[in-house]
């Protein structure tokens, strides 16, 4: 952590959140080859700043919907770390008792309403949830995270339309990392202008570059506007996925992208930048805390039991509760 490109100062919380997500992902990547993680993993490394910035102004009772690349959003919103790691391990103590896996993380108590493996599927859930908030006159809001690939799906446009029409309390956040698996946006869209597609629906929309300070400001403003009841907002956040699409490694050997393309993104690493803004002692205190928490979470997952066979047929249907 030598030099910083940005002169902004960032609160210790921001560093903690960023560092924590980064390190969780790195631990997942480290453990992955041992086969103790029983689920495909889509790491957020390189994209953490978006989740952290957007979740920062959220309240505990606000709601987020995620895609399968959900680790950053889950943690930034306050999802339980131990339950997450245990879920990746397929353990009975996991967020879904091993019945969800990495692609279906959920923590309703902390407002994480669930991720889905089919691209784009949670976007309409988010508008439905926001509709419920609206008719109940709540001041909560929904944030809906998704990738650039999800915007190829028709359900994205249908959902924008409904959100605009009903003036829903929802913030759409597109994490545009330019790729859907190995296919670049330019091979999928004639014009690269996702934010415009929201604007044309009457949803105030902006592109936010890969800059932590800008992300924090723009996210705060967008969340505030939605909470004031001004209807939906849209942020297209430009970012980059450092690791392979699924799995723990790099993928430059595949040839669809180059390390040169990645370098400028590494240089702008938000985790480092946020850390540099702190004094060394404070930073170290946070690092120590986080490392301890992560070690405990992995130990918890390791020690937890697998669900027993009798779990297989439980919860296929919800039992009546009244």
């Amino acid at each position: 952590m030598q030099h910083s490109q940005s002169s902004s100062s960032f609160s210790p919380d921001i560093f903690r959140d960023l560092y924590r997500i980064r390190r969780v992902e790195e631990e997942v990547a480290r453990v992955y080859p041992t086969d103790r993680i029983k689920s495909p993993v889509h790491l957020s490394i390189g994209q953490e700043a978006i989740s952290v910035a957007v979740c920062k102004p959220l309240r505990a009772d606000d709601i987020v919907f995620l895609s399968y690349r959900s680790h950053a959003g889950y943690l930034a919103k306050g999802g339980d770390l131990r339950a997450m790691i245990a879920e990746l391990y397929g353990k009975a103590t996991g967020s879904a008792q091993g019945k969800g896996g990495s692609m279906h993380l959920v923590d309703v108590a902390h407002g994480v309403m669930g991720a889905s493996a089919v691209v784009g599927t949670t976007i309409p859930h988010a508008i439905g949830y926001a509709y419920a908030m609206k008719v109940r006159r709540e001041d909560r809001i929904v944030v809906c995270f998704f990738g650039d690939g999800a915007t190829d799906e028709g359900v994205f446009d249908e959902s924008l339309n409904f959100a605009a029409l009903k003036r829903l309390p929802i913030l759409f956040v597109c994490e545009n990392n330019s790729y859907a698996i190995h296919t670049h946006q330019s091979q999928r869209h004639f014009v690269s202008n996702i934010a415009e597609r929201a604007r044309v629906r009457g949803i105030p929309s902006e592109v936010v570059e890969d800059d932590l300070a800008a992300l924090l400001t723009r996210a705060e403003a967008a969340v505030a506007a939605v909470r004031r009841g001004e209807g939906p907002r849209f942020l297209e956040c430009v970012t980059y996925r450092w690791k392979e699409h699924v799995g723990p490694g790099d993928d430059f050997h595949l040839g669809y992208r180059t390390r040169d393309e990645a370098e400028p993104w590494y240089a702008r690493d938000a985790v480092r930048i946020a850390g540099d803004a702190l004094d060394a002692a404070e930073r170290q205190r946070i690092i120590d805390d986080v490392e301890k928490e992560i070690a405990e979470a992995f130990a918890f997952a390791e020690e937890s039991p697998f669900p027993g066979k009798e779990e297989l047929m439980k919860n296929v249907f919800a039992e009546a509760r009244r």
Partner: protein
Amino acid sequence: MSAITRTISYVDAIREATDLEMARDEAVILFGLDVDDPKAIQGTTRGLLEKYGAERVFGTPLSEDAMTGAAIGMAMAGLRPIHVHIRMDFLLLCMNQLINIAAKAHYMYGAQVRVPLVVRSMIGRSWGQGAQHSQGLYSYFMHVPGMKVVAPTNPHDAKGTLIAAIRDDNPVMYVEHRFLHFQKGPVPEESYVVEPGRARVLEEGSDVTIVGISQALVESVRAARYLESVGVKAEIIDPIWLAPLDIDTIVESVKKTGALCVVDNGWTSCGAGAEIVARVIETIGAIQPIRVLRLGFAATTCPPTPSLEEHFYPNGQTIASAVYDLVSGQARGWMPDERADLKEIEFRGPF
């Protein structure tokens, strides 16, 4: 059971069930294409907009996929959405949300969420509706664990199963045949539920068990009248709920009759009839030979022209003819003449 004195139509039974539940529980919300338009979905949503307001009763853009997803999101938030489709065929636009999410959410999210969603879908017929306005695709929802499926055949059950569906914490596919909309029958004024997983033996008989699904039940009752004339006594079963399916009632009947005919309102291949036959045979096939027959849509696309459409659907006469062959163990070549007195078939209970 005490006699029910009031007679209303299937349409009114649906409207009343919705009204009662919306009054009882603020969380119940009704939407879908055209639910708020002047035709009010054949009248089934008439007056509800005025009574409950545009936030709880609203038409939508033509976006079946997103609106189904939105319904799921509303359900996760604690609302109890009823999503209406004037044609079951349109569900093919939202299968991803129904099968990949609605049916699975409770399980794959570790029981942290519930999806108390009712999907009302109508099956059409006649008047040249043709290929894309005629399909009875409920077997798609019987295939996937996590969904309930109901196809009430009379006003009493239309009301009672809809109330049960709305109160259920799981996604329920509620299937309405437009011909049944015009049925009238006794319906109690108060709230009641017709519980999932219980079939009804509508008529007792000893020679053959006929299970009729949705509007095919009406045709099965007609068939029973024709069959009487050749001395065949049919036991008629209305499964009501297709999932969960009350297979025990059907098995008990087939044990007695030794012959089973399922008359479906859809294609037979991998259809509801295939499931019913397979489960009956898994249970008692080893014990006794059983004569089995599935009837349903002809294995072709539905043609609109009446000269072909009349052969696309089984009817009272063709069912009677086929069942007579089944119980006889040979082709009899018997086809009854149409009887005018069977035009109107109404169920008077007991329920």
